[in-house]
């Protein structure tokens, strides 16, 4: 019960709406442009880096929490944040180390769980 009472329902709603809006942008890009999914991915990450570096994306994260950090924009912002922090601590080289360091957990988890999934899953034909 304590757990349920501690949930901030408005926070969940903000997270859901902002995360959904980011995905809508992606869906519009798929439907209305000829961009391949790989290019859309790169656009999202780079946009995240720029918004993160300018400090704008932090406001979105403060507002929507995981709704902003889980999508690719959040990954980009995290790269920028890590690069800036590390550059401040250890100079120019830190700008190259910091981004990956900050997102190392996510990258390693993606490789690890991706590998696990490939062991137990089999590709299937699309339904449409």
């Amino acid at each position, binding site marked *: 019960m304590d757990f349920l009472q501690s949930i901030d329902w408005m926070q969940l709603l903000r997270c859901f709406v902002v995360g959904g809006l980011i995905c809508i942008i992606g869906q519009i890009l*798929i*439907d209305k442009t000829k961009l391949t999914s790989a290019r859309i991915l790169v656009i999202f990450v780079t946009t995240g880096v720029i918004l993160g570096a300018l400090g704008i994306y932090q406001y979105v994260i403060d507002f929507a929490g995981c709704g902003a950090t889980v999508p690719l924009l959040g990954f980009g912002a995290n790269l920028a944040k890590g690069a800036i922090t590390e550059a401040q601590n250890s100079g120019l080289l830190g700008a190259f180390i910091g981004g990956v360091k900050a997102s190392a957990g996510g990258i390693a988890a993606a490789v690890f769980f991706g590998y696990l999934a490939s062991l137990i899953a089999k*590709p299937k034909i699309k*339904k*449409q």
Partner: protein
Amino acid sequence: MTKIGLQTIKLDSAPYILETSSIVGPKEAEGPLAKYFDQCLEDEFWGEKTWEKAESKIIKENVSALVAKSGIASTDIDYCFAGDLLNQCISSSFGLRETNIPFFGIFGACSTFAEGMCLGSTFVDSHAARNVICATSSHFCSAEKQFRFPLELGNQRPQSAQWTVTGSGAVILSNSNLGKPCPRITYVTPGKIVDMGVKDANNMGAAMAPAALDTLVTHFKDTGRKPSYYDAIITGDLGYVGKEILTELAETKGYNIKNNYDDCGVLIFDKEMQDTHSGGSGCGCIATVFSGYFYQMLKEKKINKLLLIATGALMNSTSSQQGESIPGIAHAVAIENLDN
């Protein structure tokens, strides 16, 4: 055998289409033509580990079934013309490596089936062969990997994209009908490469329609025939988008094909029920629809004069990535019941 006009070959002996055979995948088996196919598979892997192996198995089993149905020994088959969509045509060459039939691997993208029939029928007509097999195959899952994105990526398909048919169609062309009435090939019109600068690999119909038009018009000019001569003019596989474009283009050239024209990519799936977007495509599309449905119609004499035009998009994934346009090609084969 005489060349007439610009591109057409008149086959004096009119080789017989002695027998056909077709195998299709589960999605095609849910389509409106299901009952005309010889065999419908229940899953895309057909017990194999990979889609490529499954495709090889499909063409292998289809050719064996064809030979068994025809009643002639495989040693009496002189040559085999086969192709598919995978790099270096591995479905055909791996699938048919144990047949012991002299083999020509051919590539004309989705036009391969008619390309094979053009070559096969001229072989028979010139007495270079008594019996030849023409076969093609395609597989949705291996073709997506080859030309678009691997299925594991989970990409969404745009509305103009066509659905590669999983299946194989094969025919035996022969200088003898073994005493039974068979449709015959009277003319073939091999097509030219036509490139109108379309670059979208998800819109093959638009890329191939001008090539189909070129071959269609050339065929009529060379033979002196009109569209109304044929009971059916069938392309494969322009899909919904390309079918509409070809109908309009033909009209601007003064040929009205509205009444007797259809496309195999349109026929093989139910657009509303199966959500295949712009229709079917692939080497296996026209091959299975002809070997299954149209051969049956010819045998039952519901259709007596058929013009079969297979269209192909001659690109690969590298040419698309490098921003090249898609050259199209179309080969026409005139198939007629002559004994009535």
